[in-house]
């Protein structure tokens, strides 16, 4: 495993950081955007701005969670202790994003909400991503890991990959042209998926080689 110079020092510093307050820090942007929205300081189209900011942050936390392993393998720097927090914050932001859509954007107009949920591909993708995150959030506690067993827990939590991919496509699907931002996110997510796939292929090869040797 390649190790970047100074990775040890960084890891030592990271180990000293407590995770608990991280949740509060992670929710500061939500508090910030929601406060501005209530003060009507988000410009001409505040609902859309709030919806977008919360959606972007949800996607960023998903990407951060998926980047933990590649980063450790590439540089030796380990955010492993924070991965659960990234995932749960992603879930929190996705819920806030969805709630903004339901309450402020669609204004609880249920017939049209249901129509959108079955008819609009970008909404279906976003909803599927959110639904996939629910079992992950629900089994993010230590007791759930013990209860499921490590292997099953890890298999379940691979859902984070398709969920993030769907969210990235959801982003692309709702824009009118081909602006850079959603494409960049999609490219990063594709790289993370490719890394993961590569890892899977390698470990299978290693396993097979191991079996042959035995």
């Amino acid at each position: 495993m390649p190790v970047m110079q100074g990775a040890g020092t960084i890891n030592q510093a990271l180990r000293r950081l407590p995770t608990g307050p991280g949740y509060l820090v992670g929710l500061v942007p939500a508090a910030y955007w929601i406060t501005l929205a209530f003060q009507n300081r988000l410009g001409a189209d505040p609902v859309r701005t709030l919806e977008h900011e919360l959606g972007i942050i949800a996607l960023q936390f998903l990407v951060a969670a998926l980047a933990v392993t590649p980063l450790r393998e590439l540089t030796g720097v380990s955010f492993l202790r924070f991965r659960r927090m990234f995932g749960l914050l992603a879930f929190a932001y996705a819920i806030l994003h969805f709630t903004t859509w339901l309450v402020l954007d669609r204004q609880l107009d249920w017939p049209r909400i249901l129509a959108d949920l079955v008819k609009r591909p970008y909404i279906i993708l976003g909803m599927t991503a959110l639904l996939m995150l629910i079992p992950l959030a629900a089994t993010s506690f230590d007791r759930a890991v013990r209860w499921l067993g490590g292997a099953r827990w890890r298999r379940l939590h691979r859902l984070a990959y398709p969920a993030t991919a769907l969210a990235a496509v959801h982003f692309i699907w709702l824009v009118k042209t081909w602006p850079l931002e959603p494409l960049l996110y999609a490219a990063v997510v594709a790289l993370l998926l490719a890394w993961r796939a590569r890892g899977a292929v390698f470990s299978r090869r290693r396993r097979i080689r191991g079996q042959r040797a035995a």
Partner: protein
Amino acid sequence: MRRKLGYADVTPKNLYLSRRTLMAGAAGLAAGALLPGGALARIAAEASPYSIDATPTAYEDITSYNNFYEFGVDKGDPKAHAGALTTEPWSVVIDGLVGRPGTYPLEDLVAPARLEERIYRLRCVEGWSMVIPWIGFPLADVLSRAEPGSGARYVAFETLMRPEEMPGQRGFFQPLDWPYVEGLRLDEAMHPLTILATGLYGEELPNQNGAPLRLVVPWKYGFKSIKSIVRITLTADQPPTTWNLQNPREYGFYSNVNPAVDHPRWSQATERVIGGGIFAPRRETELFNGYAEEVGHLYAGMDLTVHY
């Protein structure tokens, strides 16, 4: 909601432009940026029976939330970057099937016009709307003066192409093909609701809103109302239009506001109202943006789901 149409309603409001104020208005248009203290000229304009009875959206919102991809794809980009656009001198080429083709200086187009205030709702294809008090005059005036030929059936419009001043037209990532082009059927173009705007809120158009001259077709989605026009061409055949070229399945030539014809990716049944804060109720979108009575006949017998 709209006031009933009819010439009896066109009561003179003592706002008729005298020749002097008219010239001052036109000069103000050209020289607005040079006025002392940077003050914009107040443009004198008549009230119009075509205005809707709705409270205009705040000036700040109208001038900071724009789709004008020549300056960037974000809503704030036009305001941030359009200041650099030189709008004078400005002229418009009028050509194609007209009796009097030529390059018309902006002043020559605006000076003979009787400027009116038209309060219209602008409905964007993205699903939001705002109410804008435009200052302008009927496009029909300009077209009539150019004398459309008997074979003319469509009007094509073109926006300025000037990458030095329009950052959205430079660089590696181009969202659309430039120059931006739009088109109308001749009867749509001649309709009295269709105007060329030179101002809003009694002031000359800010660059981000399409200065110095833009089209406003209130019963169509906003992207049909092409900005910063440099060419108007009368044609026999339906002209190409930018968004239709970009995605023909999603953006048709007509692009009339219609709550019953959804965008393939989102519903057009309702719209977010700009400027009302986060609890502003959505609006039910109206057929032809509320102008069904005035323009419905233009599309008699047409299947609007086919000609979207």
